[in-house]
């Protein structure tokens, strides 16, 4: 969904930061404060519920604090540790496959003109705009037939549909800023193709591609409808198990699961900020 957001994280991030450093008027300040409230408000009850079991109307603060949600979240019987591992495994696998298929395609789209290019672009954009439900329902019969429905590998395959376009778009934007002349120079200085790849291409592109991988991971991590349909409800990932506990009326456990579900996003932000800062620092010292 965040196609352009994903394609432009580096630039936009720097921009937001630069813009954010300047002073401002009262009206602008209050408008931004309101926006902040909208962005933060949904997480307040989530965090509060994760540390209490007694927080009933009309209490504004919980009656008692209780960390039992966290002990049950980390006990095997709740199914949460298994769901956490499953989510990580699915997101890592989908990301790995999407990178494997997507990075070369991103390079081709960024650096080459070829017949049928239009069609490839449409095919890449389509999964971002066409709702996945119909596609998943179409795949369902085939997946049932070949034993992939209701399995982790089946869900991984399905997650490639939304993650691959992100990887292609982000890596295309990375490659379009890449000087292929550097590869030619290395080749003319006697490097073999694999040496060029190891010592020139990968080090130069690693930061941008790492960010592409982080985004792909988050896209897979957030999937709900696809996992539900292709997994036939038998592959409970973190988003699915969160909903199960909400439906069961266990707000405390659901709150703790929601906090855990948000964490990879925070980690990804920190990581991508680090990666991009390190890349910028290296660029400064080498140029």
């Amino acid at each position, binding site marked *: 969904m965040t196609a352009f957001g994903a394609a432009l994280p580096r630039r936009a991030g720097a921009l937001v*930061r630069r813009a954010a450093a300047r002073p401002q008027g009262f009206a602008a300040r209050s408008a931004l404060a309101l926006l902040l409230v909208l*962005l933060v408000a949904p997480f307040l009850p*989530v965090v509060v519920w994760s540390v209490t079991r007694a927080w009933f109307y009309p209490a504004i603060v919980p009656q008692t604090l209780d960390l039992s949600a966290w002990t049950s979240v980390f006990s095997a019987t709740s199914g949460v540790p298994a769901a956490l591992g499953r989510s990580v495994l699915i997101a890592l696998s989908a990301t790995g496959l999407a990178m494997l298929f997507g990075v070369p395609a991103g390079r081709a789209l960024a650096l080459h003109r070829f017949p049928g290019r239009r069609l490839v672009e449409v095919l890449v954009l389509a999964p971002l705009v066409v709702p996945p439900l119909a596609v998943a329902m179409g795949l369902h019969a085939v997946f049932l037939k070949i034993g992939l429905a209701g399995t982790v590998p089946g869900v991984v395959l*399905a997650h490639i549909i939304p993650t691959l376009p992100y990887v292609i778009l982000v890596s295309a*934007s990375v490659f379009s800023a890449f000087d292929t002349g550097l590869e030619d120079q290395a080749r003319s200085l006697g490097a073999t193709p694999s040496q060029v790849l190891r010592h020139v291409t990968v080090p130069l592109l690693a930061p941008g591609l790492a960010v592409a991988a982080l985004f792909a991971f988050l896209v897979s991590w957030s999937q709900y409808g696809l996992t539900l349909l292709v997994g036939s409800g038998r592959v409970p990932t973190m988003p699915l198990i969160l909903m199960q506990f909400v439906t069961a009326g266990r707000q405390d456990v659901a709150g703790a699961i929601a906090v855990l579900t948000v964490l990879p996003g925070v980690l990804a932000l920190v990581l991508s900020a680090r990666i991009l800062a390190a890349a910028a620092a290296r660029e400064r010292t080498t140029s």
Partner: protein
Amino acid sequence: MPASIRLALMLLPAVVVLGGLFLGGLVLAIIRTVGIVPFAGRFDPTLEPWTRALQEPDLLLSILVTLWVAAASTLIATALGVGAALLLHRAGGGRLVTLLVQFNLTVPHVVTAVGMAWLLGQSGVLARLAHGAGAIDRPGDFPALVNDPWFVADIVAYVAKEVPFVAVVALAMLAAVGSAPAITARCLGATPLQAFRHVTWPLIRPGILAAATVVFAFVLGTYEVPAVLGPSHPKALPVLAYQMFTSNDIADRPAAIVVSLLMAAVGVVCLVAVRRLMRGISGLEVVR
């Protein structure tokens, strides 16, 4: 290796995977609604799923509410997102805003939806604050915003999730345009509003409209947010389609696919629109 073969090898895996999974799934979905299931060896052409789906009593109402939610969420999120981007671009709000905008982009929709239910429900945080202020007595006195026929909490959840997305796109567009055109207009006597309306906005419009189209199509096809926050009657289309797909009557399955194809059709129209809009956006043109 000849260049053309190298190029084909670079493109082929992605094209085969997306073509097989996405296009393949779509084609299989379409032919299944007319009675053809190749992998089960079934071939009895029929239009029964279509008549069954179109006879679904709530279908029209579901289409209307889904379009309402998508239109309202897109309009509000786009307006707020562009506004926030303009404020951040000119004025700024510190590292905190930056961090929260970026953080919000990474949060799964289901978490935002659950948080909204606990925030806006009749015994939620807002209702408690209203009680504390003496405005209401019992939970029932608080207006029904969750599972309500107008999908209020549903729309608010989408707005909270999509404002950062629109803002990030708008900031990138504003940066690509630069402040020179607006400053020139101001020097020639335009008011700030005129400079925005006649100079800056036309320049950033294609990117913003493309982002809005993506938001619209996304809201149209998302299951988990209306599943948590929408009413049981009328249902949002993805919820209706999923429930028909998993109903006990196996004959409902192809009809469920018809319902989800209706959404996909709107998505295809959106795709054409996005392609049109993205043409000519310099930042997104990938070929040098």
